[in-house]
């Protein structure tokens, strides 16, 4: 792949993206328009995240890609291979070893450090989009800090269902100013949005980049008498026994039998290597197919 520049994009484009990233970090939660390029993978499949990763990767970086928390999902494999090919960077599945992590729909369970960057793939960056379809209108609402519509939506949820009926892509307010879509992570992950690592959000098709700087205050929207609650399946992982991780539910037999396992595959296998065994698991190494 020597025909392409390091990490595919040309240096001018990377500079343009870095400027957008810096602006995003300077105005936490603000959606910075950027001239998203057409990437050799489809819009909606992580082109925003890929462009942000391409702009921040250096030859010394170690790169990890997860989709739904797993390194082995097909699109995560595809994106990891893309950067192996075009940037020649080292790749890893171990969260702790990665300096740049690109993710879709999850924040790793392991606490991230100050020397790490978490890059999110974002489908619809506008938290107000499903309340107001017009971009012209929503940009106006953000600039006027006019978030009443969102509050009313959450209130209506409570009056209708007795709870806020948003379980993922749960809106947050960053540094007391911008309401932000944390990308479609489950709300279980929302409390982790206050972290030591730099968090960058890339929406390729919608041409937006935004960011949460390290230790920025990120508050999930709620009401005093209906406080935000990070929820997960009320089980422990059946493979590693973890009770603090987000779980996937699998249907394992024709009778509809269920099994719960960590969605973060690296977290699960690390625990199993350390000897933790869940209700239906065996120590790692004995299940090699």
């Amino acid at each position, binding site marked *: 792949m020597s025909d392409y520049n390091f990490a*595919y994009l*040309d240096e001018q484009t990377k500079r343009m993206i870095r400027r957008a990233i810096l602006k995003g970090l300077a105005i936490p939660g603000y959606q910075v*328009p950027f*001239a998203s*390029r*057409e990437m*050799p993978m*489809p819009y*909606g*499949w992580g082109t925003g995240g890929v462009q942000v990763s391409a702009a921040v990767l250096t030859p010394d970086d170690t790169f990890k890609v997860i989709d*739904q928390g797993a390194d*082995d*999902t097909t*699109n*995560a*494999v*595809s994106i990891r291979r893309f950067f192996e090919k075009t940037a020649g960077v080292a790749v890893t599945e171990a969260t702790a070893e990665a300096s740049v992590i690109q993710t*879709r*729909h999850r924040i790793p369970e392991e606490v991230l450090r100050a020397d790490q960057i978490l890059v999110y793939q974002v*489908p619809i960056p506008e938290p107000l989009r499903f309340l107001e379809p*017009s971009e012209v209108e929503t940009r106006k609402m953000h600039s006027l800090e006019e978030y009443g519509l969102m509050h009313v939506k959450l209130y209506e949820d409570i009056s209708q*269902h*007795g*709870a806020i*009926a948003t*379980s*993922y892509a749960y809106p947050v307010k960053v540094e*007391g100013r911008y309401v932000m879509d944390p990308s*479609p*992570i*489950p*709300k*279980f992950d929302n409390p982790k949005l*206050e972290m030591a690592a730099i968090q960058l959000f890339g929406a390729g*098709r919608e041409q937006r980049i935004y960011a949460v700087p390290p230790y920025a*205050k990120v*508050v999930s*929207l*709620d*009401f*005093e*008498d209906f*406080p935000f609650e990070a*929820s*997960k*399946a009320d089980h422990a992982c*059946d493979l590693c026994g973890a009770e603090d991780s*987000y*779980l*996937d*539910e*699998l249907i394992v037999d024709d009778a509809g039998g269920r*099994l719960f*396992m960590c*969605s973060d*595959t690296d977290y*699960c296998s690390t625990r199993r290597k350390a000897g933790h065994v869940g209700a239906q*698991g065996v120590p790692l190494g004995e*299940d090699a*197919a």
Partner: protein
Amino acid sequence: MYVAVKGGERAIDAAHAWLAEERRGDASVAELSVPQIREQLKLAVNRVMAEGSLYDPDLAALAIKQSRGDLIEAIFLIRAYRTTLPRFGGSVPIDTGAMTCDRRVSATFKDAPGGQMLGPTFDYTHRLLDFKLAAEGEVPAAAEVEAGTAQTPHIMSFLDREGLIQPETDSDTTPPDLTRTPLELPATRDLRLQALARGDEGFILGMAYSTQRGYARNHAFVAELRIGTVAVEMDIPELGFAIEIGEIDVTECETVNQFQGSKTQPPQFTRGYGLVFGMSERKAISMALVDRALRWKELGEDNLGAPAQDEEFVLYHADNIQATGFLEHIKLPHYVDFQSELELIRKLRREAEANNAAPSESAGASGGNLSGKMKEGAAE
């Protein structure tokens, strides 16, 4: 005991190998060559060049071969290749008035200087399957005549002289570039035309058709539709003048539309404009109709709330590469989000059932004691 599912990498490799085999099809049938596609599927090549925004018939033909004839996939290949190309500069505006026309028709005048010419059109063919083609019959050569030497000025310019048509003002400003700056609204007309030129033919056609059926109707006459070859010239700084660097085929459509006048404009004819790479008159006419519908604001017309008048709606949804990518991404795993929805719906149902079982209890979850005050900024 449960064995975690693995194998994404192997699955991808196997899928790619299978795809390559399917692309080739039955190996006992001769393989298609890129020149065959370029020459014999020219309209497909034209569409890929137009919506891929790259004028290169050989690459477009290659993309069609690689994509197994899926034109949106081929457009995608061309777009992804196009972004990697360096830019040497911009050409001077092409002069479509100086076009060597293969086809030139006007629906508004029976004749005009330069004459009308049907050219290689499907228009008056009877759409009967030609089984001779299946037998690979050779085509007899078409009759030839000397090309006329008459100039073929734009037919619209004759209306212009009478002052009946709304004038267009010249501008020397560099037009914006949709592929290098993010789309911001409101868009200028040049940016809108750029977006329409690379927009999906089917989408633009549907939008244009909706205006004909009454959603912001602006009855359009095709003043002129011309297809042919134009020279592309570029200023070379070292030379100090423009030289011709090549020729391209384009289709241009100018419509003339009724206009009753408004508070700001006298009654006059107005224009819609379409310009597309290659021979693509369906797209060029559609583009002209949609262009005209989007001009309601500058002409002081009423916003009728029609989809074709809404520039945000049209411009944000016209690009088939954006649309197909986002549409098809729902094939990707979403089990994390689905899991959270599953838990939510189970919880809500549990509560609803509990409420139904005990109807005597008052409102319950109907939000009776909401303070309504957001806990903004409260520390976690």
